[in-house]
């Protein structure tokens, strides 16, 4: 695009290959927490003099990894265990440290991860309180007994992922009668309105608290502990970038992350503002 291309100007063009050279493009998956983290990373980098921009949410892991690969974006917020199982379906590591180590070994040569944060966000299977009571549910294994009545809501990619239906099937023999591809708030609404009776929801999702959903126990650890970790192309991982992002990682906790997500999703605050506030409060900007 030439100079008259409106997409090459402004900060919204992060996903755009024609963004000014030297600008670090922070990508995000298509759910609020990812976008929030991207905003925090970009904000911190900009505050420390590294030009960074965010773009529109790209999609699921399968998509943004491709974007990272072809240079459409340079860094994305990731979740350590999910990312590991993406590359290694048979991974058995569960604790944060060994996950990180295993991940480093499995990553493609072009990519690297920075420090995992303390903040965790895991996948989970949630049901409404009524369902839990009615079917007497505690664990995912209990739900598996009701397989022929389960209408399971989850993002489309859940059908194929190890941390998804395949994993649930092999670990608990959970084979829902119906699968409903849904994501974001639509999924929460569907669960609340009884259009699905079980759903794949992040543990940081504020609706768990506000709508009183019951997160079923996962004794077989289909869903690992997912520490937030930046995934970055090696070419862009200058020491300064690493240093800035690692310092952000140091401040991210499960609680403050959940609180920020609530502000965005429930209070409808702007992700950028929430990120700025966080950075200021933690002396990162």
């Amino acid at each position, binding site marked *: *695009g030439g100079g008259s*291309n*409106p*997409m090459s100007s*402004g900060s*919204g*063009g992060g*996903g*755009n*290959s024609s963004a000014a050279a030297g600008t670090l493009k922070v990508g995000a998956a*298509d*759910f*609020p927490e990812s976008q929030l983290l991207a905003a925090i990373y970009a904000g911190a980098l900009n505050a420390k003099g590294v030009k960074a921009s965010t*773009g*529109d*949410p*790209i*999609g699921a892991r399968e*998509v943004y990894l*491709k*974007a990272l690969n*072809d*240079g*459409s*974006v340079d860094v994305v917020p990731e979740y350590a265990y999910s990312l590991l199982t993406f590359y290694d379906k048979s991974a058995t590591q569960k604790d944060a440290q060994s996950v990180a180590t295993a991940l480093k070994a499995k990553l493609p040569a072009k990519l690297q991860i920075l420090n995992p944060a303390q903040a965790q966000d895991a996948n989970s299977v949630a049901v409404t309180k009524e369902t839990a009571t009615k079917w007497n549910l505690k664990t995912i294994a209990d739900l598996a007994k009701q397989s022929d009545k389960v209408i399971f809501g989850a993002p489309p990619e859940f059908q194929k992922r190890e941390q998804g239906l395949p994993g649930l099937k092999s670990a608990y023999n959970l084979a829902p009668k119906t699968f409903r591809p849904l*994501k*974001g*708030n*639509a999924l929460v*609404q569907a669960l609340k309105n009884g259009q699905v009776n079980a759903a794949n929801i992040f543990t940081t999702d504020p609706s768990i608290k506000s709508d009183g959903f019951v997160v079923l126990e996962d004794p077989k650890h289909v869903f690992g502990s997912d520490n937030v970790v930046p995934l970055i192309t090696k070419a862009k991982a200058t020491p300064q970038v690493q240093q800035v992002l690692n310092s952000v990682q140091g401040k991210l906790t499960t609680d403050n992350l959940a609180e920020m997500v609530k502000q*965005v*999703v429930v209070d*409808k605050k*702007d992700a950028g503002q929430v990120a700025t506030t966080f950075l200021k409060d933690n002396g990162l900007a």
Partner: protein
Amino acid sequence: MNYALNHFPEILQRAGQHAWLAGVPLVLGLLIAVPVGWLARRFPKASPWLVGGSGLLYTIPSLALFILMPLILGTRILDPLNVIVAMTIYTLALLVRTVVDGLSAVPRDTVAAATAMGYSPVRRFLAVDLPLAVPVIAAGLRVAAVSNVAIVSVASLLGIPNLGFFLTDGYQNYDNGEIWTGIVSCLILALVFDLLIQLAERLLTPWQRVVHG
């Protein structure tokens, strides 16, 4: 309403991106459709193939086309070029027929008179046929413009920035204000395109005003 007020700069910026994605193909499509239309008129035997063939392109659903584009072009998946090319294809699908219609609507007598006066074929096409086809072409262009604006928003499903972001993001956040911001912005943008084309048509066809006025 609140959403729109709070995000005004972002709306403007996305509207710019949207206009670019919808507008550039309009121009490209027109630039290609005119010679193709001329060919179709020039070689009547080829006409059904050119017109029918380009029309068939319209049957490919937009999402499908956006997805197939990187495979065909070898571009990166977030490359706006995908959208530009796909939208150009749609524009072409609409405009080839329109250009042919427009050229056919030029009175035969006028064309015969021009030839008899000693115009060379190319000069005649530019001085007589094309100007006279402007009203019909403009009508087709308006349809294409409005439809382009609507279709481009689908590209936001793939993460390509435009006004469609307000639709996908609004749905994700269950934010009615945001969705309607997106819809209304699209409508306004379509209206602006429409008005611009009408204005251009008026400027290019002074004789039409006189007839109706």
